[in-house]
């Protein structure tokens, strides 16, 4: 009999599994932070987590609400100034994986966290770039995780805040000292990877119980599927237990403040 779990848990567990033990990961707040800490608490105890607030090699007991919660500093090996974080550690090439979320993503994995609509007269103003524009280009590679919906997965983003592969898929071609870019996108429905040639995102693995139609309905372009479409392995009991305990601890801590 299989375990009961939600599609959100499936997404977090799958995102966590993407992080190999020993990887140095620059972590975005929210879903990436949840996945990265689940990885650290399960199969990847030696993963090195770095947050842009300057906290280096941090091991938070609870998930931070903000990128600069005290928990991150108290459980870090050391905390450096923010210019050092971006200049030495990120730009200096010490980060293997940048783990990002986003509001909008397009078929070439460009990310938009700036606004919906026109820049001069935005329909919705979003928070902006933050660390993402340089995390996406200076990290060795980039993992992206977000919930699947037609609003989020659009053919062309309204604004390229952060480079995936550019508007034509060639945005990284010939650029020196640049990372590989997005190598996988993990959603609550599936896992996508860029086509090696065109760089367009292709579904490589469907989560259990998810059909091709589910993904097609939630994607704003004619999404392609890999010839050898895989089925994402289910979460294990341990992964679910650790994730649920982490979230319960976090909720208790934040409610008490």
């Amino acid at each position, binding site marked *: 009999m299989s375990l009961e779990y939600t599609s959100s848990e499936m997404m977090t567990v799958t995102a966590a599994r993407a992080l190999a033990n020993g990887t140095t990961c620059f972590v975005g707040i929210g879903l990436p932070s949840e996945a990265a800490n689940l990885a650290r608490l399960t199969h990847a105890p030696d993963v090195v987590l770095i947050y842009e607030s300057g906290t280096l090699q941090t091991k938070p007991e609870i998930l931070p609400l903000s990128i600069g919660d*005290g928990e991150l500093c108290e459980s870090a090996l050391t905390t450096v100034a923010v210019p050092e*974080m971006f200049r030495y550690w990120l730009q200096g090439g010490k980060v293997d994986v940048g783990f990002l979320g986003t509001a909008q993503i397009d078929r070439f994995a460009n990310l938009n966290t700036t606004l919906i609509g026109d820049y001069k007269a935005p329909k919705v*103003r979003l928070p902006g770039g933050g660390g993402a524009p*340089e995390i996406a280009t200076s990290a060795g590679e980039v993992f992206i995780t977000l919930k699947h919906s037609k609003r989020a997965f659009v053919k062309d983003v309204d604004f390229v805040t952060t480079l995936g592969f550019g508007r034509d898929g060639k945005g990284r071609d010939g650029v020196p000292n640049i990372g590989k870019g997005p190598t996988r996108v993990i959603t609550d429905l599936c896992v996508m990877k860029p086509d090696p040639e065109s760089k367009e995102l292709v579904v490589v693995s469907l989560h259990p119980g998810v059909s091709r139609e589910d993904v097609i309905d939630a994607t704003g372009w004619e999404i392609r599927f890999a010839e050898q479409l895989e089925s994402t392995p289910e979460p294990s009991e341990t992964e679910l237990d650790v994730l649920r305990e982490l979230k319960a601890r976090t909720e208790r801590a934040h409610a008490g403040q």
Partner: protein
Amino acid sequence: MAEFLSLHDAVARFVEDGATVAMEGFTHLIPFAAGHEVIRQQKRDLTLIRMTPDLIYDQLIGAGCAKKVIFSWGGNPGVGSLHRLRDAVEKGWPRKIEILEHSHAAMACAFEAGAAGLPLAVLRGYVGSELPSVNDQIKFIECPFTGERLAAVPSVRPDVSIVHAQRADRQGNVLVEGIVGVQKEAVMAAKHSIVTVEEIVDDLNAHPNACVIPGWAISAIAVAEKGALPSYTHGYYDRNNRFYKEWDAIARDRDTFTTWLDENVYNAARSTASDSAGGQA
């Protein structure tokens, strides 16, 4: 040599209408008490610089203090939008503001360049981003040695920088601990600086490599107990995450916000303000 002033007098002396002001603190040590004093003194037409505007600039923008905001991430961390920032950008309430947005890496480099007395910061940044198409302060230059194309942004050199720290000694030397953000850079990049502290002590007890800003590099020190709430001061009190969540509802509506501002900033002595302005655990 830093002068010890009341927060009121420090803000009155160094923050002029039309000034370029940086209030820094990366999630940690955000100088809320000083921000509220700026609101109470009804400073106008300020150019406000901060990597993460956070609630402090949401409040200053909603109170009508800002003419222009330079930032790199304008959200309520872990919660959502800054509704006062959005209302000003989208609807021009209470006044139209100009925004200039960067990435964190560029702003961090720009503060560092300001501290170093340089006119610009150079970084490997903005590759493939469309931010340079909406911000004319982002340019690209060619490395004279390798030919690599690099991004350049003007350094940040505020008229006045305001930061909060744990403590100062009686000579005005300041110790900053925990997440130090770009605080030291902000102070060193500015013409004038105000540092609010939790307390004044006889001895900083700083280890040899601690982040200490010498008193002679600071214009004014003002004591502001719990001056960073609802953000936090490492070693003194925690971030009030609950207030950050509550702010979403307060700031969403103009009337609710105005009432909050009246009760907690304009008509409140600081002691009571710190309670309802997110001061209660």
